[in-house]
């Protein structure tokens, strides 16, 4: 019996059939493959190459690139400008992430009101700044914030405020760059918050209103707790993005006054592209990547544990 079964199996023309799960998996990877290939070539390969470069005295145009081991990292640890740039970057990131999240959430709440007409129009309008390049944003805001001729100081003069040196005062320059960035970047997190708000069941609000809850109570007890996963996403991606700020200080202040708006990537640019020290620039990049990873893990640790999905 066993033999005949075996024979019949052998004689029957066999069609190779994958199960559904395997087919779906292959299809998924096929759809992902253009991204995976490009990501591997332009990001993963470049990342490993940068790590390798950080162990060399790598001047791009010199054929001889000696291996220096950890010398670039030792220099980095003793480099005052690196620590200053890191401090500036952290300060900028905190202000910008908090500011962007607050403005984006406020805008999303405003647009999400049931009585608002033309939601789509306002959604597009408020998202529009995100479509502009950093060059356009930077040059325009340099004029808006100009101490002598800027419209911001002109408007403030009507309420008796003397001209403020937004980009020339070492204490104000980072908040001014943050202000620019918040205006530029709040559109995308606003859309994320809108999606989050639309995912909150309406029954919860109805129940709260029947129980006599005020708007403030509803926001703090229902909306904000249920938006925590969204908030986590916005803050984590925000910190990752803003830790890499470059265009705004490069275009608006060139890192000044003094080094008051030097950021890590700005310093990396100076090292790699002005001093032509690619090895040292790569060490800065690797160090920043490690810091961002640690910071992201900490955010998940401290904010993420209070999130219910």
């Amino acid at each position: 019996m066993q033999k005949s079964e075996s024979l019949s199996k052998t004689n029957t023309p066999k069609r190779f059939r994958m199960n559904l799960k395997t087919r779906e998996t292959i299809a998924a990877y096929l759809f992902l493959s253009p991204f995976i290939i490009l990501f591997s070539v332009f990001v993963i390969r470049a990342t490993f190459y940068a790590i390798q470069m950080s162990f060399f005295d790598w001047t791009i145009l010199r054929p001889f690139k000696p291996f220096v081991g950890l010398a670039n990292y030792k220099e980095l640890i003793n480099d005052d400008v690196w620590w200053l740039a890191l401090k500036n970057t952290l300060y900028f990131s905190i202000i910008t992430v908090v500011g962007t999240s607050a403005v984006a959430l406020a805008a999303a709440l405003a647009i999400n009101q049931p009585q608002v007409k033309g939601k789509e129009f306002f959604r597009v309008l408020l998202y529009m700044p995100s479509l502009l390049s950093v060059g356009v944003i930077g040059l325009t805001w340099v004029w808006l914030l100009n101490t002598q001729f800027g419209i911001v100081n002109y408007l403030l003069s009507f309420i008796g405020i003397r001209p403020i040196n937004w980009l020339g005062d070492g204490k104000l320059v980072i908040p001014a760059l943050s202000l620019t960035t918040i205006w530029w970047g709040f559109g995308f997190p606003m859309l994320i918050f809108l999606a989050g708000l639309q995912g909150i069941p309406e029954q919860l609000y109805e129940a709260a209103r029947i129980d006599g809850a005020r708007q403030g109570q509803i926001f703090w007890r229902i909306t904000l707790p249920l938006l925590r996963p969204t908030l986590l996403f916005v803050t984590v991606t925000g910190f990752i993005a803003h830790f890499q700020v470059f265009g705004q200080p490069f275009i608006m202040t060139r890192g000044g006054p003094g080094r008051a708006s030097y950021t890590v990537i700005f310093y990396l640019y100076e090292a790699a592209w002005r001093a032509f020290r690619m090895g040292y620039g790569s060490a800065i990049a690797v160090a920043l990547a490690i810091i961002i990873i640690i910071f992201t893990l900490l955010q998940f640790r401290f904010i993420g544990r209070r999130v219910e999905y």
Partner: protein
Amino acid sequence: MPKLKALKYLLSLFILVFFVQTMAQDEPEPVVTDFGSGGTLISFWNGLSGSDGVTLNEMLGQFVSENPDVSVRTEIIDWGTLYPKLQTAFVAGEPPDVFIVHASEVAQFHSYGMLKDLSYLYDTNGGPLPADDFAQPGFNGVFIDGVPYGVPLDNHGRATWANVGLFEAAGIEPHIPNNFDDLVAMLQQLTLDANGNNAASADFDPANIVQWGTCMEWIYTDFESYLWQHGGSIISEDGKTATVNSEAAMAALQKMHDLIYKYHVSPEPAGFDAWQSWAGGKVALVPTGSWFRNFAEDQTDIQGQALPAMQLGPNPGVWFGAHVFMIPVSLEGEKLAAVEKMIEWVTNNQKMWAASGQVPARISVQAELDPENYPSNILIGKTFQDYGHMEVVSTAILELQSALDPELSAALNNQKSIEDALNDANKRMQQILDRTQ
């Protein structure tokens, strides 16, 4: 939620105004321009923006009309972007056929083996360009170990521009005093508060100034001028030791600082727009460069007059540099011949270049300039010849500048003491020199 609604409308209004304003901007200056349709196309990169770029483009237009076999594609790139772009282009094996950088950077680019030896272009080696007709000490800047790696287009450097009307209103003939005390006294007369009191008056209100005697513009180059006036330099003659915390440097920077915080004749530099303030009649004497000429002439409601650089030290001294044509070492054949033709044509027609405000590199062309049309070129060129100092030559000049510039800014914007700023700069510059020399 009326507050949220108001916020929404406020944000929307702001964004709408911003977009309207953005779209209403003037046409940007062209960065890539094609000249001619000749069979041999040469690419030409430079950082000559503003009136420099306009003048050079006019010259190239005329060059291709006289040389129809050649066409030129120029790319005008901000200097700060040009240097990294040149690096990547050379590494990729696709450098421009000809480019312009400054004489002070010849040593750095030569150290990478990027530059062609151009001895054969000068008559000392049978070429068409008369070597002894290029003004010194600018011409020396293109030589490394006795070999020329470039052809100078001009000498350009620091000067001042006076608003003649403001000088006349103060009863002063536009001039530059040859000592610091007299300079301060003059600038005090030219600095006015909202009540019309000048900075020498006992009733002067330094918190409410409406007209400045002077201001700071390109701090790095002016500091170098004042440092030379005090007998110092940013690095030693052998190029191995940083000397920017010397007594001379401390004195030079202290005097710049005093103009701002002690005598109140100059605003804090950061956030102050020197050119627009001069155009708005808010600054009597702006320290700037030879390239200011056309901007000054465009301000038809202001009578401007070029003057030598300010003298803060005991001796005169002024920073100047040179724009220099360079050719990649790899260029050969038809393109090389076309590039040589273009450089020779531009060099022989440097008088046209004087329209940019810069001082032509050739002595014979400088002599051709008439005082009526080129007063600033003649005056400024003479200061370069009489007491000019070329930017220091170092294979790490760009990095040295990056180390010093923020410290000067920090000191003059009162973020650091003079001593700390110059000591920090010196320490950093010495690290660079130890690593590179």
